[in-house]
């Protein structure tokens, strides 16, 4: 038994390398896209050529610089209030990343705790948590988050709360099932034989084995959180009106879509790149980390 444990401990570095090779370009493309998103979010004041709120009504609805009528000081054009679209896109990334990081982490904490609990205790604990998840998932998620954000009131906190309240079930369901699977494995039985308490078993043995799954879920959940933030700000119940968000840019662009289609098109490009980047990154990491997928 001890030999197996030592072998398992010793293996990771080389196995990780093999995994990284196996996950192929997916991981790298994803990592580059995620890194770009993070850089834009962190260094928004450095990259943005203008103040995202600065209005210049004399140069409203300018097309991107390479189109006829474009102005080179506004690389991606301006919106109907003459605000720099590029700067607004960059600052919106900041809001999106903030919401995604905090909301996904909180949803994971709640979901993992409940999932571990349900998966390891079984019986009535499992029954009641599973039932709760079922009822929870009877709601259309989009509608539920819209209702939540609206009743809690506008603001970053309410957007995050709405995402966490709706999405903890994604983690709870998967972690519950995976905990049950892991508990049937020999190593878990062995740990119980040598007298590990349930809490220590979960913390020291089960949880580390859930990490690959958790990393993937987190990346996917960040993508989902970005989308929910976009949805809420598109509907007009996200952050305060003057904070730039991709969703509010889309909503503004929808009003003048025939006159200035790029105002709506550009944030869509940003959203798709970010979400695909996060999905590829999560997928790639899972392939790289998960011993079952690897073999």
């Amino acid at each position, binding site marked *: 038994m001890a030999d197996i444990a030592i072998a398992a401990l010793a293996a990771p570095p080389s196995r990780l390398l093999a995994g990284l090779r196996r996950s192929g370009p997916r991981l790298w493309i994803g990592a580059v896209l995620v890194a770009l998103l993070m850089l834009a979010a962190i260094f928004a004041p450095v990259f943005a050529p203008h103040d995202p709120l600065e209005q210049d009504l004399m140069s409203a609805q300018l097309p991107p610089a390479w189109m006829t009528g474009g102005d080179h000081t506004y690389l991606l054009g301006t919106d109907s209030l003459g605000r720099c679209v590029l700067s607004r896109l960059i600052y919106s990334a900041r809001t999106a990343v903030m919401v995604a990081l905090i909301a996904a982490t909180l949803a994971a904490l709640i979901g993992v705790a409940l999932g571990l609990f349900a998966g390891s205790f079984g019986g009535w604990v499992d029954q009641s948590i599973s039932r709760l998840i*079922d*009822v929870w998932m*009877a*709601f*259309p*998620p*989009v*509608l*539920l988050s*819209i*209702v*939540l954000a*609206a*009743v*809690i*009131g506008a603001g970053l906190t309410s957007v995050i709360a709405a995402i966490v309240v709706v999405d903890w079930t994604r983690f709870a369901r998967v972690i519950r099932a995976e905990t049950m699977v892991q508990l049937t494995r020999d190593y878990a039985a062995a740990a119980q034989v040598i007298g590990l308490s349930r809490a220590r078993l979960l913390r020291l043995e089960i949880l580390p084995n859930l990490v690959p799954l958790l990393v993937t879920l987190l990346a996917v959940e960040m993508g989902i959180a970005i*989308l929910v933030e976009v*949805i809420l700000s*598109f*509907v*007009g*119940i996200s952050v305060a009106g003057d904070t730039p968000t991709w969703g509010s840019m*889309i909503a503004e662009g*929808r009003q003048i*879509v*025939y006159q200035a*289609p790029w105002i*709506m*098109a550009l944030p*869509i490009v940003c*959203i*798709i790149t970010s*979400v*695909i980047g996060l*999905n590829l990154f999560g997928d790639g990491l899972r392939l790289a980390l998960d011993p079952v997928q690897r073999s």
Partner: protein
Amino acid sequence: MRWGELIRRLVLVPPTLFGVAVIVFVLLRIVPGDPIAMMIPPGASEADIGRLRALYGLDQPILQQFATWLGQVASGDFGRSISVRQNVLELLLARLPATIELALVATIIAVLLGVVAALVGILLRGRRAEWVVDGGIGVLLAIPDFLWALILLLLFGVLIPLLPISGRVDPEIDLNLHSNFFLIESILTGHFDIAFALLHHMILPALALALPFAALVARLLKASLAESEDQDYAQVARARGYSRPSILLHEVFPNALIPTVALGGVQVTLLLGGTVLVERIFSYEGIGNMAIDAVINRDFPLIQGLVLAFAVMFIALNLLVDLVVTMLDPRLRHG
């Protein structure tokens, strides 16, 4: 899913609905925000506010409000909308058909596209072109319906203005129909010009809803086609000289259909949930669009009615899928 199990699920429907009702009610009552404050004109007296509060039953203790509300809902009375000032049930019944028709058209498009993509993919199995099909499915799946809505709106509404981007039908068309199921009724009564006009408006939102779902159907079906094709019976048929397309269509496809319906059918609920935003984006007059307005106006009775309506549709869909799977699978049919 055996028949007994199906009945067990049916019995569980009322408690689930009750749970949904409790959560919606509690959620909307414990949070701050006063719906009455939104509807009073400036300068209304305390007495006026009190009267309004009493009119909507908001002055009662919360448990009593819930009991009253539940009793009314059970008898089909969803109360009066605060923002539109109409009967909630009437509002729901007027708008619901639009959403059901949209979801139906989207599902049909999705199933057709998905089945074709899966069959093409499986015929190309093992060749380099299979990668193109898989990649396409992956991209379709990664982008959610509301982003497809925006992309399609930009592409086919604005850049190449082929299709209308708002509403259910042109206002100048005289519908003169008896039900609110415009599309179904116009097809059944032979008014194909009206049906065409309706479809003309429906195609972009329906396609937006259909694309991710089609990708899901394609992925599930292709995987189970591949699995079924590797089974002995398919190999035997091949050895006896039947052509591969014939085996795929007559032997493999019916078997591969069962897991696809079981897994994919439940996902129709996601498509239904997607109508909320897609209707908003295309200004389509269904209950999804109405839900967003209701939320923005803090219209409690309307929100409760809408969420319950969605929950009922979700549960009904789940049961329907179970039923279809039970009927498709000969092993379960006689279970």
